[in-house]
């Protein structure tokens, strides 16, 4: 690696800069104030290609191109503009390290969220100081930040340069890992003894994420932020509900009292199986005791629980909007810092939402976008500025990653609809619905087959909306899929998530539809925004899933004569299983349509690697 890098003297400083890309970027955002208005105002840097920038997708048609470069420029602008102006001054670095330090203790605080939050925090902080000061080399590195003069060179980055950069990044990371792990042992021992219970507290996925990442952050200095982030993004072991110790601990912490259903399905012991009927009442009765939960979050949680809001995008947007509201109403308590206190709050909200309904992978992605934004806020910012910055971050996420992405997908997918097509869809997907409506607006002649499955019967709502728009529809149930597939020319499916082995994780029944379509040689097009992509790999639908209300299986809507299972819970041998998701193997999928273009399922890792991770989030 090194020999390759050496000849290019120019790239050297740049490498460093990129290596500490993540920690460096945040302060600039905060110092510039709300990033949204400032970014387009600096045209020079706007044109510059950041070294990490990825060329716009090829598949986009001419009018779509408008969108994606915009996203890219937006996302990388702050880096360029900031580096040029601020980094020459050493005060910025000082400021930054301090900031990072406070952030670390902030994470510790998350951990102990709840009763004895302050005390262990001070412990942790005192324990941390040596750890931070240990981090000599990285700090020095940081101070050698590229001078402003090197910045113009950035514009000329070639492919080779970028590649060299990537290499350097990798080596830097490896070095940091090696160095950090050794030093960390002593530091972490102190920390661990100080707050021994921190790790056990972890209950729900995002919090657990924290516990693992806290360990990392405690060990390493501030500028190992990149690693920390990476760690957080890495698939973490999920809470296994057959692990009794952890379940007990989680129970003690939970706000909502959940009674376990009596007839639990053996195969799914690792997933939470709760009685659904009692939870709403329980939540209602706790309304006045839940002072930790913001009313907006409470509303959204209840609506998740009742199934009022469903669908990946809708849930994600609702959650983010609720976060926005809660952040707006947030005021830092006395003797606390926003960067420390707010993450605790957010964690509390997230765990509340999880108790209402397990988070989808897309929501997890959204949260892991939001959370690092908080500690990145500069402590010099006033509270209102910090809040405004967060709010605009969330706004951008919703606009760019969800709303805009949907529009791009619709434009791409519509090109795949020809006159005379018979399009099949399963359940009700917001993107697929938009595609149909758009195709109709374009005057295409087509027919839609809506396949629906019990117990959710989401397709009925879609049917109502499409028929209302005058689209000719055929409605049938999932079992008749083989019957109806003869006449179908395209299958459009939505997805809850796309995993990096190409597996599409989506509403239950999708796999069957895709399988039958594959059998009948009908192309299967999966429409999914890239923020739903995840590194994780899944082979079947059993290891990870979500269980719905088992009573929904017993009830047959509209037919009271089918009531054989009314008293199912009284029979010991009888269990009902209501799976929510299933995993469709990539073999059955012809194409995945994302806002970056139309890709085969084998290319999912590319999207996850190139656009995901740090770059995923603007």
């Amino acid at each position, binding site marked *: 690696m090194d020999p390759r890098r050496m000849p290019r003297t120019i790239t050297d400083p740049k490498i460093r800069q990129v290596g500490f890309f993540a920690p460096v970027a945040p302060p600039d955002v905060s110092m510039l104030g709300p990033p949204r208005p400032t970014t387009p105002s600096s045209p020079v840097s706007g044109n510059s290609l950041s070294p990490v920038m990825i060329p716009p997708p090829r598949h986009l048609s001419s009018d779509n191109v408008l969108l994606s470069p915009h996203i890219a420029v937006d996302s990388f602008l702050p880096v360029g503009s900031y580096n040029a102006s601020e980094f020459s001054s050493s005060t910025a670095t000082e400021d930054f390290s301090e900031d990072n330090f406070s952030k670390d203790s902030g994470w510790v605080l998350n951990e102990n969220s709840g009763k004895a939050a302050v005390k262990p925090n001070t412990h942790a902080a005192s324990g941390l100081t040596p750890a931070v000061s240990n981090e000599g080399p990285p700090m020095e590195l940081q101070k050698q930040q590229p001078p402003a003069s090197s910045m113009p060179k950035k514009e000329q980055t070639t492919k080779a340069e970028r590649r060299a950069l990537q290499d350097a990044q990798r080596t830097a990371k490896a070095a940091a890992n090696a160095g950090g792990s050794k030093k960390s042992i002593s530091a972490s021992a102190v920390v661990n003894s100080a707050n021994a219970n921190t790790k056990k507290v972890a209950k729900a996925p995002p919090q657990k994420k924290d516990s693992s990442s806290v360990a990392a952050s405690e060990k390493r200095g501030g500028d190992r932020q990149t690693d920390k982030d990476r760690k957080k993004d890495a698939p973490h072991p999920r809470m296994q509900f057959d692990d009794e110790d952890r379940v007990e601990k989680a129970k003690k912490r939970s706000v909502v009292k959940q009674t376990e259903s009596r007839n639990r399905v053996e195969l799914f012991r690792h997933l939470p199986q709760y009685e659904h009927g009692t939870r709403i009442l329980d939540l209602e009765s706790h309304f006045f005791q839940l002072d930790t939960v913001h009313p907006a979050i409470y509303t959204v949680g209840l609506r998740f629980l009742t199934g009022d809001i469903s669908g990946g995008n809708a849930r994600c947007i609702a959650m983010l909007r609720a976060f926005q509201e809660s952040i707006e109403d947030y005021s830092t308590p006395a003797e606390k810092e926003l960067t420390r206190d707010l993450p605790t709050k957010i964690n509390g909200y997230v765990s509340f939402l999880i108790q209402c309904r397990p988070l989808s992978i897309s929501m997890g992605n959204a949260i892991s976008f939001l959370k690092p934004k908080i500690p990145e806020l500069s402590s010099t910012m006033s509270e209102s500025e910090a809040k405004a910055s967060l709010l605009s971050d969330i706004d951008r996420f919703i606009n760019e990653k969800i709303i805009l992405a949907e529009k791009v997908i619709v434009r791409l997918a519509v090109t795949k609809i020809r006159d005379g097509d018979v399009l099949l869809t399963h359940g009700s997907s917001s993107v697929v619905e938009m595609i149909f409506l758009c195709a109709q607006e374009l005057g295409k002649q087509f027919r839609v087959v809506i396949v629906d499955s019990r117990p959710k019967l989401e397709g009925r709502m879609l049917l109502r909306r499409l028929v209302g728009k005058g689209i000719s529809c055929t409605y049938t*149930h999932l*079992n008749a899929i083989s019957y109806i597939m003869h006449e179908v020319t395209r299958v459009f499916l939505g997805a809850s998530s796309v995993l990096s082995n190409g597996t599409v994780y989506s509403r239950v029944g999708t796999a069957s539809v895709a399988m039958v379509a594959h059998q009948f040689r009908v192309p299967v097009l999966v429409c999914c925004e890239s923020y739903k992509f995840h590194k994780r790999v899944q082979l079947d639908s059993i290891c990870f899933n979500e269980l719905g209300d088992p009573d929904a299986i017993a009830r047959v809507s509209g037919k009271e004569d089918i009531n054989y299972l009314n008293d199912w819970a009284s029979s010991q041998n009888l269990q009902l299983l209501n799976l929510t998701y299933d995993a469709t193997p990539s073999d059955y999928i012809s194409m995945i349509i994302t806002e970056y273009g139309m890709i085969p399922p084998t290319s999912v890792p590319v999207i996850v690697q190139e656009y995901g991770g740090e770059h995923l989030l603007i």
Partner: protein
Amino acid sequence: MPDYRGLVDEFVAKLNKRKVEGSQATARLTAELLRSVVSLQKLPCKNQASVLIESVRSVGVQLIAANPIELAVGNIVRRVLHIIREEDVSILTSNTGDLNLSTESGDEEIEQDNNPSSFAASIADIYRSSLCAPSLHALLEDAPSTKAPCRIYTSGVDSEEKDDKHSLSRKLKHFVIEAIKTLIGDIDSCHDQIAQEAVEHIHQNEVILTFGRSRTVLKFLRAAKEIKGSFKVFIAEGAPRCQGHVLAKELAGQGLKSTVIGDAAVFAIIARVNLVIVGVHAVMANGGVIAPIGMHMVALAAHKHAIPFVVVAGIHKLCPLYPHNQEVSLNEMRSPSELLEFGKFSNFMDYSTGVGAPPLHVANPTFDYVPPELVSLLITDVYCKEEEILKLENRLWTSNVVKKLVCLTENAYSIHV
């Protein structure tokens, strides 16, 4: 003229309205109806068999027209027709035997050929070939009859019936009715026969998936439970009728660990299943099966996961027809109200208001066709003895065997109805 008219009309009406459910019940009712037809039919002195055949056939045509999808009706009518022909031939041969060799006569069991001489045997063969090819049952149970026509002479001479033509007619009727009774008995016991095989296929702690509701499957699993102890069953409910709920309740009542899943979860669950056992509606001549809607999806999922897909079916479901355009010709559309409640969408389904085609169609088919390559095994109640024909000595048929068998017998079936 015929007194059975009322009975036939009643049954036809039932079939028309699809009041009879399940092919076993239909088969049984058909056989019972035909028995009463035979017993009520007045027979002339001559050509008794042809009169009987004619009346049964006309009734059969009516019944089949009433519900062309219920293939068991046709199967039973064919069987009864075959029984009549066989009885006729056996009586004729015994008569010829009586005429030619007056010392010897046959009052033996009807099922066996009682040809005392080679001459009689040859006549019988002529009759056989002209009247009927060997039936399925003849092949399976009775096959040696054509190959080993020579029998031990029975010594007893029955003088009572020999001369009496009237008693002879009654004799034919009597024998036919007896044979139909045996047939009904066979239909009744087919579940138990099939259940005997259960031991061989289910082991302890296995996970079994079934779809919808089938009495055959219920008995099969129960038998396995009694011998092999506990195993788990996943039951896909089989929307929109959700008959799987009933089966689940029955199985749980038997002490089996049963779990009801939605049909959509079949693909997800099948990864953990060892065996798929289902009941079907009919078995076609090529070894494919007509099954409740959704079965193709299940079979395909099992195939993709390399899990055996076992079909249990009584022999009355084996049909000598080949499936052609089965999605349409062997299917039936049920009411859309099973999927969408009336009222909610009726304005869209109204043909009169809209211009051109209505914007909404609802497809609610009843049956699915599962091609033979997806069926791993067919378990039936007929114990197949004929090694030379089938090279098999059990009740387990693969689709190839079905094809072979049907090839041999299809003439017997398809010519006569």
